[in-house]
């Protein structure tokens, strides 16, 4: 294999590139990134509104095509089409091996064109633009109380803004962590002075009279909330638009097998293509083999070694056997998780205490443990993880 192209220059792409070198790949290595920035870490963007560059291995010896968006893939000719170049010569690059690591994009507002002052948050530039507007005393409406929306609301409240948080479900974080933890987080939000509206959706963003800038947000029950700015935190969607028509199997991400080999529409792995990070849709043993794209930081890191290995050793691939995990810091509570809480049909609360900030909750599917969530009880996660470990090798074929 002479030339490997990594499309996606964020955590998964960078770490896979590093793993390729660490595993002995000495050929030409190219990283393609659509943002005009070298790799940076995403979690601090919403958790701390902070820009944190990622370390790049000094001996990576890669060609960086930064600010170039991949717009197409031809698996027959083994080329990736790029836009945004200075010269026509770069419009198409060939590969012998390809790593798909394009991550996710923020879900956009499906309705009206948005007024000025309404933000989505995914990339570094989004955070810089938003941060400049987050000044004390302003009225911020955050739409969506998943992890991103909850973290952002908490961070903005800390900066002294008047924050309103809107959630369509009955509780924040309900889908990710269940209604008990959701109710707990709702209490944390309210104790911090955030106005939380659950079970409702936004009907309209209205401009301030005589301007093209947001002035209020109208809810579906007709309530009008004055707003100086708003953030949409509606979730993320795998960035697979550039793969449309390529012949690869798509749907909630790019489909891969347990070895992170990318599947064609006929279900057969396409030689020379692997995927890593948030864009991958994998069978999840803990969810009974159901396919999910998770979007967890630790998974991107764990994928890197497996994806690199599968690309370099096609005759002898090793399955990915990582156990998912995520974290979230909200109002001083450090939530830490292993497994797949979102796959549970039953939630068992061991401890969920606001005063002590101690949390220990387990998640089960058909009676079997599938995940756990803790705060100030993180020492106990290792034992839960041990219990899950033997099961992540299931469904490897």
């Amino acid at each position: 294999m002479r030339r490997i192209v990594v499309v996606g220059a964020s955590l998964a792409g960078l770490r896979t590139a590093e793993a390729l070198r660490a595993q002995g790949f000495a050929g030409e290595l190219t990283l393609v990134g659509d943002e005009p920035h070298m790799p940076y870490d995403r979690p601090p963007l919403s958790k701390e509104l902070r820009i944190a560059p990622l370390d790049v291995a000094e001996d990576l010896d890669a060609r960086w095509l930064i600010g170039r968006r991949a717009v197409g893939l031809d698996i027959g000719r083994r080329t990736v089409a790029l836009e945004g170049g200075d010269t026509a010569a770069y419009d198409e690059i060939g590969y012998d091996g390809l790593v798909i690591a394009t991550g996710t994009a923020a879900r956009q507002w499906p309705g009206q064109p948005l007024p000025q002052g309404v933000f989505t948050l995914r990339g570094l530039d989004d955070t810089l633009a938003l941060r400049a507007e987050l000044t004390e005393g302003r009225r911020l409406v955050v739409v969506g109380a998943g992890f991103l929306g909850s973290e952002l609301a908490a961070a903005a409240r800390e900066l002294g803004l008047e924050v309103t948080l809107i959630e369509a479900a009955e509780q924040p974080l309900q889908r990710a962590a269940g209604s008990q933890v959701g109710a707990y987080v709702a209490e944390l939000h309210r104790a911090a002075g955030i106005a939380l509206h659950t079970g409702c959706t936004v009907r309209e963003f209205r401009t301030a009279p005589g301007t093209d800038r947001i002035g209020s947000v109208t809810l579906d029950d007709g309530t009008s909330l004055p707003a100086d700015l708003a953030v949409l935190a509606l979730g993320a969607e795998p960035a697979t638009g550039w793969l449309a028509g390529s012949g690869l199997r798509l749907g909630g991400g790019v489909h891969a097998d347990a070895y992170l080999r990318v599947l064609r529409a006929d279900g057969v792995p396409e030689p020379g293509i692997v995927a890593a990070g948030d864009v991958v849709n994998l069978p999840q043993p803990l969810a009974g083999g159901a396919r999910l794209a998770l979007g967890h930081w630790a998974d991107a890191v764990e994928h890197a070694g497996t994806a690199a290995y599968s690309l370099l050793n096609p005759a002898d691939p090793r399955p990915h056997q990582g156990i998912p995990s995520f974290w979230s810091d909200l109002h001083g509570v450090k939530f830490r998780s292993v497994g797949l809480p979102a796959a549970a049909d039953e939630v068992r609360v061991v401890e969920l205490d606001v005063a002590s900030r101690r949390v220990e909750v387990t998640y089960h599917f058909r009676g079997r443990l599938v995940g756990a969530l803790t705060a100030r009880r993180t020492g106990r996660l290792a034992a839960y993880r041990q219990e899950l470990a033997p099961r992540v090798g299931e469904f490897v074929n």
Partner: protein
Amino acid sequence: MQITVDMNLCESHGQCVFAAPEIFSFDDEDYLVYEATASDDLLAKAEKAAAVCPVRAIQVHAAAGQGAA
């Protein structure tokens, strides 16, 4: 091998505890405790722990003659 953790960076994510439980653990308040000196048999696990730390707080130094980590 020698292990150092920058406790100003550590946010108790626990990834190191999962990767190398022989070296890393938590106390009752979720503060990380670790063995500053560990057997070189655990080098691969320690390096995995350093690689998966979300805040890159861990440094691993192999014993003399084993090459730098």
